[in-house]
């Protein structure tokens, strides 16, 4: 009985220690795990894969470094997929840190020999228009004219002078939008404004916190959603380039098991002590 009382009153730092061990130890393992690709992730992959070369893809980076562990692997896989298919990429950000995260992802993807061999040129094959304040109003404004919404790219070049942007006025000239989102503004705003107002086609990568809220939009308003690190791992698998997200899956699974273990133990201790109190 005293054991369960002590269990309920355990110092939380012991719990923290278990969490650190559960997360860190699996990182040393090189085990390859079975990862099933969900239909939603496949839908996003297929939507991009079916685009003909030269199609324009708008990628909106709506996250900050706090969400990078979940979304950066998705960004990397997506860029690799787009560039390997010779798609043209326009990058924007509704969060100030977004375009910088995009640059970090581009740096990583350009180290890939297959992508490096393509000799992609800034302004012709991809552009980064940077961040603009205004949240969903930016999306609304882009629906009219992207050039007035983003008069310059992130380095100050006039948008109208970039070769890639000459053929793009608004969403009518964009073939697919991919949104990486960690909160507000994010995928919901893209659905409300770009999809429902301007009939754009949208796929999304979300943090796991946000992903459940996007399910009502699928498939009529949203092609599919990559949810959390698992979603990123699935995209890496379907693109046949397992990378960071896949390598973290063992840690993810062990940490979940530890949380479930703690919840069960906590409930067990609670019910045992409650039962003893009732009888006494």
């Amino acid at each position: 009985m005293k054991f369960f009382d002590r269990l309920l009153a355990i110092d939380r730092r012991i719990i923290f220690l278990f969490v650190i061990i559960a997360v860190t130890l699996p990182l040393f393992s090189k085990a390859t795990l079975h990862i099933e690709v969900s239909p939603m992730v496949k839908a996003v992959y297929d939507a991009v894969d079916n685009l003909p070369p030269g199609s324009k893809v708008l990628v909106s980076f709506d996250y900050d470094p706090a969400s990078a562990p979940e979304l950066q692997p998705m960004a990397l896989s997506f860029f690799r997929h787009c560039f390997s298919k010779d798609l043209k990429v326009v990058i924007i950000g509704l969060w100030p840190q977004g375009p910088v995260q995009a640059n970090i992802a581009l740096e990583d993807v350009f180290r890939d020999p297959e992508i490096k061999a393509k000799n992609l040129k800034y302004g012709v094959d991809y552009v980064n228009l940077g961040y603009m304040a205004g949240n969903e109003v930016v999306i609304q404004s882009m629906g009219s004219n992207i050039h007035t919404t983003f008069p310059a790219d992130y380095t100050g070049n006039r948008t109208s002078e970039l070769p890639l942007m000459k053929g793009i006025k608004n969403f009518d000239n964009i073939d697919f939008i991919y949104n990486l989102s960690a909160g507000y503004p994010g995928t919901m705003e893209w659905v409300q404004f770009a999809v429902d107002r301007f009939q754009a086609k949208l796929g999304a990568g979300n943090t796991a916190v946000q992903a459940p809220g996007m399910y009502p939009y699928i498939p009529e308003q949203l092609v599919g959603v990559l949810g959390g690190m698992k979603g990123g791992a699935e995209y890496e698998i379907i693109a046949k380039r397992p990378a960071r997200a896949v390598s973290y899956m063992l840690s993810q699974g062990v940490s979940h098991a530890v949380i479930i273990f703690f919840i069960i133990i906590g409930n067990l201790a609670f019910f045992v002590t409650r039962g003893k109190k009732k009888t006494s």
Partner: protein
Amino acid sequence: MRREVPLIITGIVGITLIISYFIPHTPFNLLQDLFTDWYQIVAAFAIILGILNLLRISLDKVYKKKKGWFFGLVVVLSFFFIVIPGFFFSGGRGFQNPGTPFFWIYFYIYIPLMSTMFALLAFFVASASYRAFRARNKEATMLLLAAFFVMLGRVPIGYYLSSWLPESYQLATVADWIMNFPQTAGQRAIMIGIALGIVSSSLRVILGLERAYIGGE
């Protein structure tokens, strides 16, 4: 007039934007573009307002030597530590390019601090789950079971625990089914409820019935 003019502005801007949805032609499309452009500029200045306020509070703390004034000084110094290189030593508008001092500070100071702050949540979610997550009644038990199925089904461990079962009963399949059907139904109900609430609040704001955003006198 201090309270009436803002209410009139809100009403005119709100109604114009509603009309522009149904009549996307001159002059409403031009007015829509004008108001949305102004919104973006004012939003940027609102952020700057918050930053200036933060500096004012920190400097006040340092000047009056209040409790924790040293950390107020650290806030101010850290602010200028990134602003000065950002404005003067990072190539002007290309300040976010990899290789600039601004990018270095972003990559080696800002990213680790922000990432670790949020990573702490993992510990607190574990501790809070252990202490507070109790199956006290049927509803709480349903919540718990749904969480267990999703947590195990969405990681590869779920496959290894249940691969011996027929595919329809494996953890991953059950988790997907929970997400696609009952979870979506609940989310949809919440979403519709919130949407109706927002519609009524927006209408109240546009009609001037809701004035809390104006503040004092």
